[in-house]
Structure formats: C-alpha cells, structure tokens
C-alpha cells in the first residue's frame, strides 16, 4: 500500500507522541521522571468489623510486591460505592487503620492488682495460671446445679464474658465452646457482622 504524504502526516508522529510532548523540551520532564519515588498501593474491599451496620471499607496497602518488603496498611477509607455507608464512616471505623497497624498494641499480658494504680507486666505462664485459679474459684463458688424449682440448669452465674468486635471468627468459636462448657450464660462475643 502506498503511503501518501497526507497519511504520513497523520500517522508518522503517532509513535513518538508520548516522548516529544509536542516538541516541548522533554529533558526536564524525563529528569523528573527518573527522580520519582514511586510507590505501589493496592485497594482491598472489606467490611468494618465494629457494629452490625456493616459499612463497606477500602483498605489501602502499600508495598511493591518485592519479597523482602512487608506490605503495610496505610489507610482505611469508607467505600464510596457501598450502598450502606456511601463512603462515610463513624469515628471508630475511620480509625480502623490503627486497629491493623498500631505501635501501642500490647504484646504481652498485663495485670492491675486490686487497689493498684498501675498495670504491671506478667509472663504468659503466670497470666494463664492466675486466670485459671480465679476462674476455678469463682465457678466453684457460684455454680448452680438446680434452680429454685428443682430444675437442672447447670449454670455459672458468677462469670461473664465480653468479647471485642475485632476478634476473629475462630477466636469467637473458641470463646463460645469454652464459656458454654463452664456453664457461663452471660456471654457476649460481639460477633454480629
């Protein structure tokens, strides 16, 4: 096919258009490009764990897929496309990023003794030991085998358990199994979403 001068004018420049910038000096732009610190962010849709409204969120994770780099959550945004919240979040939901990455997260058990004003660090072994003793003591003291009408109830009224919204499904399963096996009725694991 013969290429006419007219066609050449239309197609000839197309290939290099990105680099010629209409003939403007591309050197300063290329220099700027070379110096750019580029970061790669992915966006993941999820559901806010806190309450039963179940607002949609978008989790922003930074990381360049390199093997030696741990991806880091940098922002949690209300999902603007979600029909329930249309981008809005309550103050708790808006602070979700700190639920995922937080330098103040406790990494070991702590205890505040009766009458004390400060929390003290204790070992895991000691914590489990103390919790087991207190649980046994309370359960033995308050366990009710039969109610006032002589009906078998096998319940432990001296213990209550309160969970947290950000507990995992697996953790909640264990909580229910453990508490029910001890006869605990006052059980709230906050697993509504």
């Amino acid at each position: 096919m013969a290429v006419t001068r007219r066609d050449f004018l239309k197609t000839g420049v197309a290939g290099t258009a990105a680099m010629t910038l209409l003939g403007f000096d591309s050197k300063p732009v290329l220099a700027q490009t070379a110096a750019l610190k580029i970061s790669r962010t992915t966006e993941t849709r999820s559901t806010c764990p806190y309450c039963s409204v179940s607002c949609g969120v978008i989790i922003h994770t930074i990381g360049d897929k390199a093997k030696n780099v741990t991806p880091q959550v940098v922002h949690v945004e209300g999902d603007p496309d979600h029909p329930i919240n249309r981008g809005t979040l309550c103050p708790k939901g808006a602070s979700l990023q700190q639920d995922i990455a937080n330098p103040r997260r406790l990494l070991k058990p702590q205890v505040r003794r009766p009458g004390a004003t400060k929390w003290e660090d204790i070992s895991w072994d000691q914590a489990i030991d103390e919790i087991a003793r207190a649980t046994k003591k309370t359960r033995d003291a308050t366990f009710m085998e039969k109610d006032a009408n002589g009906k078998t109830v096998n319940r432990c009224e001296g213990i209550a358990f309160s969970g947290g919204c950000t507990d995992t499904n697996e953790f909640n399963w264990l909580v229910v199994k453990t508490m029910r096996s001890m006869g605990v009725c006052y059980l709230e694991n906050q697993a509504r979403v």
Partner: protein
Amino acid sequence: MTPGAQVGVAAQWERRAQRAEELAGQHAATSEILQFYARILRLQGEIAAHAPPAKTDAPLRLQLNAAQITPYFPPLFAAIDRGAPTELRRMAHEVRERGEDYWAELIADVIQKPEPPGGTVYFFARVCAQPFAEAIARTAPRLEHTRQGACPWCDGWPMLALWRPEGDGGKRSLVCSFCLGEWEFRRILCPWCGEEDEKKLPRYSAEDLPAVHAAVCETCRKYVKTVDLTANGLAEPLVDDVATVALDLWAAQYGYQRLAANLFVA
C-alpha cells in the same frame, strides 16, 4: 448534566487557565508547557463562548460538524506562532498550508473516533473541538447503549479519572477524552477490560506529585491517570494532569499504556 458542571462555561475555562499559570510557577519541569497551555485554554474559552446552543434530542457527536469548527483554526495557528516549540510551529504551518478541506478531515477523524487519534497533527482539531463538545455534553441525551467504561454521552474513552469527596472516601468518576463529560464509575474496576481482581489493579503514585496517581490494570496493561480531589480540592483535572506528565512518562517506561491521550501525551 455532568457532576460539578454547574458553573458558567467561560468561567470554567478561565479557571483552568489560571490554574495552569499557577502550576507553571510550581512545576519547573512542565512550566513551559503549562504557560503555553494557559494560552490555549483561554482560546478554548473564547471558542466555548461562541458554541451554538446544544439540542437535547440528538446524540452529541451528530450535533458537531467540521464547518462549525474550522473557523477556529486560524486563531489557534496565530496563538502557536506567538510562542510554541519549533516542531509544533512547523506542524501548524504545514496544516495551515493544506487548507480548510484538510482541517475538516482532521476534525472529522476526531469527531468520529471513540479514542482520540494520536499524533501532533490532531492537536489542532482536538483543541478546537473540545469546547464545542463540552458545551453540548451538558445537555445532550445519554446514549442508550454504551460500552462499559465509555462516555455515556459520546461513547468516547476516558482520559482521566477523578476522586470526588463522598462521605469520608473518594467517589470515582471518569472524564471523557472527547467531550470532557464526567460520569461516575466504580472503584477497583478496570474501565478498559473490566478486570475486578484487586490484586491486579494497583495504583502507582509519587511523593513529589501529590494528589495524582496512575490506576493501573495488570491484565490489559492500561492505566487511567487519576486526579484525587479529596486530597487537593483546588486541582483542575485537565491542567493538573498535564502538570504531572512525569508520571505518564514513568508509566510508559514500564510498558503501561494510557487509556486515552490528553492534548500533550499519548
């Protein structure tokens, strides 16, 4: 009616021109381009002021004809003569020599194709057709069938994406490369190939270029340049896009192709 398009036509173009002048002072690398773009934007404002009232019963592209648009080529050539790089001046000279029939041909190409045709030679037709098309996009009827990701008024491909504040998040909309119409579009979805896998839809941003990023699709290797109005409400998308052309060059170096070209880069 496009979201955020309630302001007067002339004021809109003037605001873009002012933003170009403002950014020219801030972005050393693109300063020269932005100063030139400011003059082009003012010229486009004048063209927009003369655009005939749009009909509400005919599709946008059918309302445009080359005869309306060719009279604006000479003022554009004059503006280019007053200050533009040699290559563009040479091209303007050559296009001017070829006469109105050739101009009409270039305009027809721009009007007919959903994707802006590449090449410096189309710069003239795109500059002159844009204000007409934008004026019409505000009143033209929505097309009954458009492809996913394409403009609902003219079926053109999106040149830009915006994040507009919605609640505490950014609602995405796309901006048409032809008529500058703006329509809402879901986040985490490739407008070109429909990819929905969030692992394949990263965005690339640079510290030095805040409030813009390239929303990339690893499946089709295309990207949409995004201007984040939740991070900078003063941004004028058309202008901020040109000011941050370094990000486009970065994307090109890594083999990503821009979904639709702006006036300055493909």
